[in-house]
């Protein structure tokens, strides 16, 4: 290991030297049009260097205990600012997945569907690294299965602005726009304004696959002048197609009507701020989706979601096209699967093939991923906003964990503003289950839980605070009885550390990078 480490370190330093040596390259990186000014012999050298160095940098990054999903791309772009455009030329025009919730799972579902129907494994950022550097890393390192392979990339809401022009997506899947990490973006409205601009810059033949149930998404795509395929709920005669998803409480940050701006109302089913919305002001309402989904009644004892998919044949009616059973828990999975089928439709995958391909597809990193640790089960869930916590609450209600490990950190990837925990139903998660709190902001979680869920004064649940993630995992595991379940609900960087801790103990398979 030592010689490898020395070699890798040397290569890393060389890369850093190249990366920071030339100023004009940095300006060219942010503006592809200025690249021609710096082309030439040096540029060719940099192209080669960037590609040659990537594996070494990736190695250094991983040896030093990091994920290695972003840094290699960062260095490569510093060395060769034109690398993203070059790499984008080497793949088919990609399918890009956008939205605040469900990107990673949906990306994974679409990738599985394409692999099934094309017989080629698409390039995809399966680890969820969705900023510019993460995309470059993915395109650099993901193995090339063929000439110009297909690609499915999840992209951060804001990073999309600078990536839309370079990637020239064939399809953009717009999941939703729920409250997420407001500190990075300012405000949801700012993202809407930004997307309106970005969508007008897309190639005119880019197909938008959009969630009809999100009024904010509707307001962005309606005037985009691009072909649209919509997905949404398929209400059953019995009413609510989303079991357990509607808590009847106030809608967290209800969206405004795309036409007149008044707050929309939900007559029928809704899940968080998504559903069959209608505007009391101007009468505008949800468009009929092209792909519909509802939760079918399954065996209540199992841990699978049974979904029924439908397609719009003609007029306003939806006709069933088949059933999908996925080991994902909760109503959010319904939207993820519907989005994947709609994306398949836009890509030219026959809907019935899409349904067959999706049946049984597993969860993505941290999206209710299940890991066996001896005779105990660890269930990993990403929590990043009130919506994802609602998802976790649903899962907990079905899985009855014996212990819950809650993690909160405030690094950039977690979202630096942690105040959303006060809008999330964390107290419902705590309930009667003993808790361990961890992460750099564990003390803030303790305050949040002390003040409970409502105005009533409640006894606190038994809880332990341990800011150190690795030791918190060990103590939490010790408190789970044999055959019991530990549920982990944590922000991104903590989940990564836990996942790696389990990998080190050879308990979890390595993640595809």
């Amino acid at each position, binding site marked *: 290991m030592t010689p490898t480490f020395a070699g890798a370190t040397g290569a890393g330093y060389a890369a850093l030297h190249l990366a*920071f040596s030339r100023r004009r390259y940095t300006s060219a990186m942010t503006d592809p049009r200025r690249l021609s000014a710096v082309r030439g012999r040096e540029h060719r050298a940099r192209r080669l260097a960037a590609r040659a160095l990537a594996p070494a940098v990736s190695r250094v*990054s991983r040896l*030093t205990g*990091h*994920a290695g999903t*972003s*840094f290699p791309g*960062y260095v490569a772009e510093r060395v060769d600012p034109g690398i993203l455009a070059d790499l984008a030329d080497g793949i088919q025009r990609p399918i890009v997945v956008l939205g605040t919730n469900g990107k990673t799972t949906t990306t994974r579902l679409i990738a599985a569907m394409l692999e099934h129907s094309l017989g080629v494994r698409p390039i995809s950022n399966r680890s969820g690294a969705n900023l510019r*550097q993460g995309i470059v890393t993915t395109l650099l390192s993901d193995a090339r299965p063929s000439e110009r392979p297909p690609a499915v990339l999840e992209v951060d809401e804001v990073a999309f602005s600078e990536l839309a022009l370079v990637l020239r997506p064939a399809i953009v899947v717009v999941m939703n726009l729920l*409250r997420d990490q*407001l*500190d990075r973006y*300012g*405000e*949801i*409205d700012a993202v809407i304004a930004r997307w309106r601009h970005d969508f007008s810059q897309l190639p005119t033949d880019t197909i938008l696959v959009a969630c009809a149930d999100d009024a904010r998404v509707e307001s962005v795509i309606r005037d985009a002048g691009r072909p649209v395929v919509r997905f949404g709920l398929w209400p059953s005669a019995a009413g609510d197609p989303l079991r357990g998803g509607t808590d009847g409480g106030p809608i967290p*940050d209800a969206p*405004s009507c795309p036409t007149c*701006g008044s*707050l929309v109302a939900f007559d029928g089913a809704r899940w968080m701020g998504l559903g069959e919305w209608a505007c009391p002001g101007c009468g505008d309402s949800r468009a009929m989706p092209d792909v519909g989904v509802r939760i079918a009644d399954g065996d209540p004892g199992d841990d699978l979601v049974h979904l029924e998919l439908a397609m719009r044949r003609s007029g306003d009616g939806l006709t069933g096209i088949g059933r999908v059973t996925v080991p994902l828990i909760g109503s959010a999975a319904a939207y993820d699967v519907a989005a994947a089928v709609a994306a398949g439709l836009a890509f030219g995958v026959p809907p019935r093939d899409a349904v067959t391909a999706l049946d049984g597809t597993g969860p993505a990193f941290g999206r209710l991923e299940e890991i066996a640790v001896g005779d105990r089960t660890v269930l990993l869930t990403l929590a990043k906003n009130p919506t994802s916590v609602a998802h976790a609450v649903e899962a907990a209600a079905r899985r009855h964990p014996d212990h819950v490990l809650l993690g909160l950190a405030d*690094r*950039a*990837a977690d979202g*630096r*503003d*942690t*105040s*959303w*925990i*006060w*809008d999330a139903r964390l107290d419902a998660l705590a309930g009667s289950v003993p808790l361990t709190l961890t992460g*750099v902001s564990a*003390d*803030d979680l*303790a*305050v*949040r839980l*002390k*003040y*409970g869920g*409502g*105005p009533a*004064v*409640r*006894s*606190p649940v038994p809880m332990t605070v341990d800011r150190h993630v690795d030791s918190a995992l060990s103590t939490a595991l010790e408190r789970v009885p044999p055959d019991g379940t530990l549920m982990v609900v944590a922000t*991104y*960087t903590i989940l*990564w*550390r836990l996942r790696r801790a389990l990998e080190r103990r050879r308990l979890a398979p390595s993640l595809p990078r």
Partner: protein
Amino acid sequence: MTDAPAVDDRSIRIVHLLPDLLSVYGDTGNIRALVVRARRRGIRVSITQLLADDPGLPRGDLYVIGGGQDRDQVAVEGVLGRLGDELGRAVADGAAILAVCGGYQSLGTEYRTAEGRVLRGPGVLDVRTVGSGERLVGPVVARLTDTRFGPGRLTLVGFENHSGRSELGSDAAPLATVERGGGNNGRDATEGLLAVPGMGGMRGLRIGTYLHGPVLPRNPHLADGLLAAALSNRGQTTDLEPLDDTVEWRAHDRFVERWRTGDWSDRLPRGLRKVVEPVRRLVGP
């Protein structure tokens, strides 16, 4: 910590202003902190919400207003145009008020948006705000200017996220002095607004602040100051029995410790920091 409320015949009325328009950023946590801290002491609390369509202002001893998006602030201006004077009278008569971020800006004398649009405020708080293109976002550690708050702790912690730059009027004093973060305007190291009109004790206390987090749960001294002000408006004794705030102060102190002196990379020479910062941001997690 005991949950059994002591026998007490005191009661206060809290009015949550416009939760339907101003309720992102977890500011409902402020109401929870007030209610829980009052009830643990056996003080009865009634909570009323003023929604955007409601005709009149409910009577209260303590008014609380949170933050929202710029778009919502236009709607808020409409409501305050209707009810702002009434609120001003209630506060002048001795009710207390806590205004956070968007609410702080809206209750001032004027808010000029970045696009140049002027929103007139009711002037309940003597502050005027001008929008700017650049947001002040990040953790804030500040020092309270008034020593009457709390058990010997003067630090104030929270998370700010605002594009407005606020200037205090001549009737107002800053709530705190910024040690880390932007505060009112990123220029004069002031954070928030504090007015104690001198009606006896904390009666008529007005607090404006940019701090989310939400601000009260991690700053129990500020929460208790507001409770004392609400009690004195009812002519009730303002002695507040101490609570076990170990959890709250641990979170508070941890925040101060992490952010007061800045991140370690802030202490590097500038040239080195420019190299280290992007790398540090990217290698994680």
